[in-house]
């Protein structure tokens, strides 16, 4: 089966679900969610077993590229969407309050369909090696997210988040398109290999191409939530519904990074642009690490805290980008920047989804999204509290979790690169950020275990559906196992 059938299958799944939503007379929509979850699971199986290895790497019509990275990021996209649907199914009880008044289930079917279409966009992004394909798939994802973010029509916060995401997202699209126009103007190509050739031909001028690259970085920096293009992140994360926050945090970031990696590679390897690109990247890394971690300290809303933590993680991930420079590549000991970033993103998927699953279950019962609302969770539900503990510890990067190995690999690259080029300031910012991280993640753990519940009203029994319980245990095992045996993920790379 050719790899591009995967996206077609995903689209067919989405359209089937949309058709059922529109034509089914059955009022309950949970069947659609189950169909989506099982359909995604089947496509994931196809991805693992049915794509022949003779087709990797392979180029279709010059616009669709399949290599092991593309397949890896496609798997991340499908897995993320699958978990988001599990979250959405749990969230639907809280969700009903905010959609339509006449019919309590109307509108929720689309809430399960749209992530499927976004997933197709994420998968195309993983295969895009052409600025046109990158643009179209990126917009498929972004426009899908506009709707998802503002989906809770009766909730003012959700609409406000939607408007902010719309305006800033469209602004970043404008920068991206203008940057693409200039890159086409200077190099005469849209495909990245053509751009790489043109950059090395020595026939183009430096100023316009740096200008174009900077415009492109504004657009992509928005997607991966890098400072100073992060202003949408806290408000949108806080305002929108929990499953979509998780989706934005993992899916959007992972796909943004594969595109970022693909786009900056020709620029980093050309002697014409290399030094300026490294300068731009180093600046972005430092401000992202500094700002993301320090502002996270004073947050009390748990979604805002995770928003700033997501910015901080983008900083850690970008730390490995300057090291993709060709002069340094042969000197590096250990996994390459591409492998380390992919490992970190896979681990980030596991630990973030674990945290969001716990918070979704807790907040759909108590309606609270502050750190204080987790108080006494250790006594109320030991499983949820332990899952949250492991998730948060992994986000902070404590040994025996997957987050530790991710940070270890990235620090390994950053330190070796600092030895090579003398950019120790990046390492200093990263150490500062990581230690600040220990503090604000510890606040969550302290709230769960140390502070007892104040009122008896908080002692509602937390009911966990069987599906969520299974998913939590699988993710928990994943975080710990991949932390002890990192080969489980690195083996795929």
């Amino acid at each position, binding site marked *: 089966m050719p790899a591009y059938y995967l996206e077609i299958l995903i689209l067919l799944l989405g359209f089937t679900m949309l058709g059922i939503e529109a034509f089914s007379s059955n009022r309950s929509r949970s069947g659609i969610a189950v169909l989506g979850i099982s359909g995604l699971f089947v496509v994931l199986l196809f991805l693992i077993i049915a794509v022949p290895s003779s087709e990797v790497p392979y180029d279709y019509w010059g616009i669709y590229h399949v290599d092991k990275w593309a397949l890896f990021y496609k798997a991340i996209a499908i897995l993320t969407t699958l978990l988001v649907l599990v979250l959405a199914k749990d969230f639907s009880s809280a969700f009903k309050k905010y959609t339509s008044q006449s019919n309590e289930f109307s509108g929720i079917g689309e809430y399960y369909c749209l992530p499927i279409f976004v997933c197709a966009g994420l998968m195309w992004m993983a295969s895009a090696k052409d*600025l*046109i394909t990158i*643009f*179209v798939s990126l*917009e498929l994802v972004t*426009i899908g997210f*506009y*709707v998802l973010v*503002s989906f809770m*029509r*009766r909730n*003012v*916060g959700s*609409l*406000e*988040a*939607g*408007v*902010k995401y*719309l*305006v800033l997202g*469209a*602004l970043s*699209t*404008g*920068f991206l*398109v*203008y940057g*693409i*126009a*200039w890159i*086409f*103007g200077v190099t*005469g190509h*849209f495909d990245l290999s053509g751009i790489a050739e043109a950059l090395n031909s020595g026939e183009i001028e430096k100023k316009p191409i740096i200008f174009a690259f900077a415009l492109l970085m504004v657009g992509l920096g928005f997607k991966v939530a890098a400072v100073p293009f992060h202003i949408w992140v*806290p*408000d949108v994360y*806080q*305002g929108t519904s929990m499953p979509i926050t998780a989706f934005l945090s993992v899916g959007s970031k992972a796909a943004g990074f594969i595109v970022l990696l693909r786009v900056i590679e020709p620029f980093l390897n050309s002697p014409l642009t290399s030094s300026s690109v490294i300068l731009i990247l180093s600046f972005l890394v430092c401000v992202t690490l500094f700002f993301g971690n320090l502002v996270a300290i*004073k*947050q*009390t*809303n748990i979604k*805002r805290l995770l928003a700033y933590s997501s910015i901080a993680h983008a900083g850690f991930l970008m730390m490995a980008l300057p090291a993709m420079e060709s002069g340094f590549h042969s000197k590096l000991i250990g996994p390459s920047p591409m492998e380390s970033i992919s490992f970190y993103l896979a681990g980030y998927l596991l630990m973030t989804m674990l945290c969001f699953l716990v918070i979704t279950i807790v907040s759909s019962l108590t309606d609270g999204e502050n750190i204080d609302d987790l108080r006494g969770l250790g006594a109320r539900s030991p499983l949820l509290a332990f899952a949250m503990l492991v998730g948060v510890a992994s986000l902070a990067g404590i040994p025996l979790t997957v987050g530790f190995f991710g940070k270890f690999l990235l620090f390994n690259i950053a330190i070796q690169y600092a030895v090579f080029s003398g950019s120790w300031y990046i390492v200093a910012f990263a150490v500062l950020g990581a230690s600040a991280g220990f503090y604000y993640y510890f606040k969550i753990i302290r709230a769960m275990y140390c502070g007892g519940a104040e009122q008896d009203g908080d002692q509602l029994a937390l009911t966990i559906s069987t599906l969520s319980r299974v998913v939590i245990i699988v993710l928990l095992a994943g975080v710990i196992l991949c932390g002890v045996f990192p080969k489980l993920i690195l083996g795929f790379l």
Partner: protein
Amino acid sequence: MPTLNEYLLMGGLLFVIGLCGVMIRSNIIVILMSLEMMLSAANLTLVAFWRFGGGEGLPADSYNAQVMVFFVITVAAAEVAVGLAIIVALFRSRQTVDVEELRSMKG
């Protein structure tokens, strides 16, 4: 006949005007119009680069840039459709289209 530089200048001006509109104005509808203007500026730049891409004032031999322009137009239409829907929903619940009044979240 106008030269490439004149088209690029025009595109740049449109882009900056759009950007200023997004930054300064507080009515969301006007902001959306400014965003469309930025996309149009990018389209103009693309077509201008295509028209002069072949050297000696001749068009480039591939139609890539025109295809890109079509995609940008389509995406802009989809963006506006979704954007206006969100704005209508916002107006129904808040009775305002002013971004200055959207400050319920802080921190």
